[in-house]
């Protein structure tokens, strides 16, 4: 057995005091598999250790909220027994290393988060930030990321109806690739992740497990250095075809009542899914790793628990429903395996080749995860810019033309046309407007207005006002299409939280967002935090990307930005 040295602990991204705590919880030295599990569960990515105390300040409640943060995605009531389920996520680091696959698997992950809860996805949006257009890597990154997002979403048949794409040198070494998915479910058919029912089977479905991206979850939380581009590939390859089959098979199974709980295997795959399901249900799980469908030979327990192979799900079924469920997954050509059972021990117990290869008490693993109140300093208020200090344009026409030609403001047709934004036949307001409008399936009149917004430049100058502005802009964009804003999701992309000024940006943005959400009755129902977007000491601009959704009771009455006919009257409203 591998002796756990301080080097191994450090390689797993655990600080010495964090490791002391592991020893205290275990009451003994963990083996490598157990250490690996602690390392992913306590990574920034999974534990939110730097951000959690601040995220708590966001308003998350409202009469429309069916399920706020804490599940795979947020759930909002849209009336007549229907719910919108949505979330945004980042795939920044993987997309920088391998733009096509990184972006593609990012889309795959966020789609799974939404259909895990019982929703059929109806829209994808993708806020993107790249470095300066002149930077030698930018072109390659833009074309790879856009092709990857399109490649995955197009194949899935989910329309991509919006997003953003702006450029700034602050993102030269750390691009931001965020993706949001919105789905529709019936309010009496929403699926959660809490395991229950002692003895119930734990079922694995989807693709086989390979040695993909072992340790990707900790990679996503480590600051980049020059060498990381050369490290062994921790990037996973996505298979949108299998995900499409997984979507259809899951929805088919969900139409019945066999599922007790379900959770997708995202970053940190089998580890985070099994630990979260056990923790939420307050139960134990026993997994027999020999039964995990494997793509490669001689896989170790460590590798299986940490693999990030894509297109996999974990479910708890009602007893006796295995065969009926298996028939559905086999019809769709997917792997299906009973790999364990729910127990009353409160422990995650792993068996492999006849031996117990891991035994961790679940409650302390999740509840006692590190939590940091990192030191932070407020961002100094920027000096007021006086109108008189800015030279007036002497030719407004020329200024307008120049602005329209800038990378941030120019037409994004080149991107939008690589995404299927019409599949489904429900796209009422296409990309290019303030918010997209997508019709709600299975309802005669309802539509959803969806948008993502953030202006990092504002957030950099003043995180509080910038955070506020991002929320408010989504609100306005939804309103402009005729929608009633309902709720938001967010993706908080920041630099290294161990720098007090960066942490200050984060805290400020949260403060601004909270204020706006409270003022507008516009709660946060899901989100994601991506920290350490920093290369050799240079961080990205603070980028709290906000995704908002709103409801149109009658989609035929939506408004779009197009002038409809000559001679129409233009009105200016607001201050």
């Amino acid at each position, binding site marked *: 057995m591998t002796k756990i040295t301080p080097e191994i602990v450090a390689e797993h991204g655990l600080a010495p005091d964090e490791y002391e705590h592991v020893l205290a919880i275990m009451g003994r030295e963990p083996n490598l598999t157990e250490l690996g599990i602690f390392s992913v569960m306590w990574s920034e990515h999974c534990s939110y250790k730097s951000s959690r105390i601040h995220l708590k300040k966001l308003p998350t409640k409202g009469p429309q909220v069916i399920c706020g943060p804490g599940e795979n995605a947020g759930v909002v009531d849209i009336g007549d027994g229907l719910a919108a389920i949505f979330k945004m996520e980042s795939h920044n680091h993987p997309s920088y290393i391998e733009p096509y696959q990184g972006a593609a698997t990012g889309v795959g992950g966020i789609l799974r988060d939404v259909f895990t809860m019982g929703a059929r996805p109806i829209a994808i949006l993708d806020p993107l930030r790249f470095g300066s257009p002149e930077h030698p890597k930018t072109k390659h990154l833009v074309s790879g990321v856009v092709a990857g997002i399109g490649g995955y979403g197009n194949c899935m048949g989910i329309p991509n109806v919006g997003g953003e794409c702006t450029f700034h040198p602050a993102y030269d070494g750390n691009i931001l690739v965020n993706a949001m998915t919105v789905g529709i479910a019936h309010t009496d058919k929403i699926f959660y992740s809490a395991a229950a029912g002692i003895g119930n089977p734990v079922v694995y479905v989807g693709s086989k497990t390979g040695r993909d991206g072992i340790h990707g979850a900790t990679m996503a939380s480590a600051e980049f250095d020059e060498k990381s581009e050369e490290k062994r590939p921790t990037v996973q390859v996505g298979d949108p075809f299998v995900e499409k089959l997984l979507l259809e098979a899951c929805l088919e199974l969900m139409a019945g009542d066999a599922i007790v709980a379900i959770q997708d295997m995202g970053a940190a795959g089998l580890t985070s899914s099994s630990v979260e399901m056990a923790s939420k249900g307050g139960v134990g799980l026993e997994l027999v790793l020999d039964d995990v469908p494997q793509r490669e030979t001689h896989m170790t327990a460590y590798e299986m628990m940490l693999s990030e192979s894509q297109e996999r799900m974990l479910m708890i079924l009602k007893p006796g429903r295995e065969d009926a469920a298996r028939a559905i997954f086999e019809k769709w050509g997917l792997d299906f395996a009973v790999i364990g059972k729910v127990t009353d021990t409160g422990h995650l117990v792993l068996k492999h080749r006849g031996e117990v290869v891991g035994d961790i008490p679940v409650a302390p693993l999740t509840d006692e995860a590190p939590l940091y109140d990192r030191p932070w300093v407020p961002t100094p208020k920027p000096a007021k810019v006086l109108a008189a200090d800015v030279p007036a344009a002497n030719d407004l026409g020329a200024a307008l033309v120049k602005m329209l030609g800038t990378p941030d403001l120019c037409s994004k047709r080149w991107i939008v046309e690589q995404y299927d934004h019409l599949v*489904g036949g429900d796209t009422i307001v296409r990309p290019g407007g303030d918010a997209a409008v997508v019709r709600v399936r299975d309802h005669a009149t309802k539509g959803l207005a969806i948008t993502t917004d953030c202006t990092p430049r504002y957030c950099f100058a003043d995180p509080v006002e910038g955070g506020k502005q991002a929320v408010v802009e989504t609100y306005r964009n939804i309103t402009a299409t005729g929608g009633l804003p309902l709720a938001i999701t967010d993706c908080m992309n920041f630099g290294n939280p161990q720098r007090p000024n960066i942490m200050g940006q984060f805290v400020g943005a949260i403060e601004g967002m909270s204020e706006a959400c409270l003022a507008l009755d516009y709660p946060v129902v899901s989100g994601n935090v991506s920290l350490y977007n920093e290369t050799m000491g240079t961080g990205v601009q603070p980028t709290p990307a906000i995704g908002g959704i709103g409801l149109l009771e009658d989609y035929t009455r939506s408004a779009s930005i197009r002038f409809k006919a000559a001679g129409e009257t233009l009105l200016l409203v607001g201050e």
Partner: protein
Amino acid sequence: MKAAVVVFPGSNRERDVALALKRASYTTPAYVWHGDTELPAGTDLVVLPGGFSYGDYLRCGAMASLSPIMRAVKDHAARGGHVIGICNGFQILAETGLVPGVLMRNASLRFVCRDVHLKVETTDSAFTGSYLPGQVIRVPVAHAEGNYFADDETLKRLEGEGRVAFRYCTEAGEIAPEASPNGAIRNIAGVLNEKRNVLGMMPHPENMTETVVGGTDGALLFDSLAKALA
């Protein structure tokens, strides 16, 4: 009209086309699984919908063309039954040989989703009977491999027999290379088989059948079918 929409693993516009058919004919088509070996009794029209059957892996449409149901589709066509393949469905038809030619990677090498203009080149088919000869219509495309190619001899026959159903054109109806979203030879967007009962086309008329989504030019195709196969 009794229509059957075949669902392959990876199909994703089966519902779109089923709704378009329903709007035109007031009857809901049946969904048929690719693994089935028979079409529902009395099927008039078989639809191979858009999507990414088998992920578009190897060659678009190649694996789907070998599905069990395709034997029944071929028999149906041989009996004079009608078949339409849209986008991935066109690729499947080409792979099975039900229509001539192949669909290669777009000349841009990129997926393209946008509205295009098409010139209706023949109204002599159950699919196009409700259009006016030479009519210019607007419908979207959404594909990465729609670059139609056939050898000279095949093209000569297709054109000589009036079997090119649609060509990409400018808004004014000009068949110009720049009007083609994919580099297709002679701007061909859709072709008929010899007996004119099988149509393969890349654009998506099913996504242009309601004013609220941007237009109704595509609806006429389904109206044509509903009338012809009533």
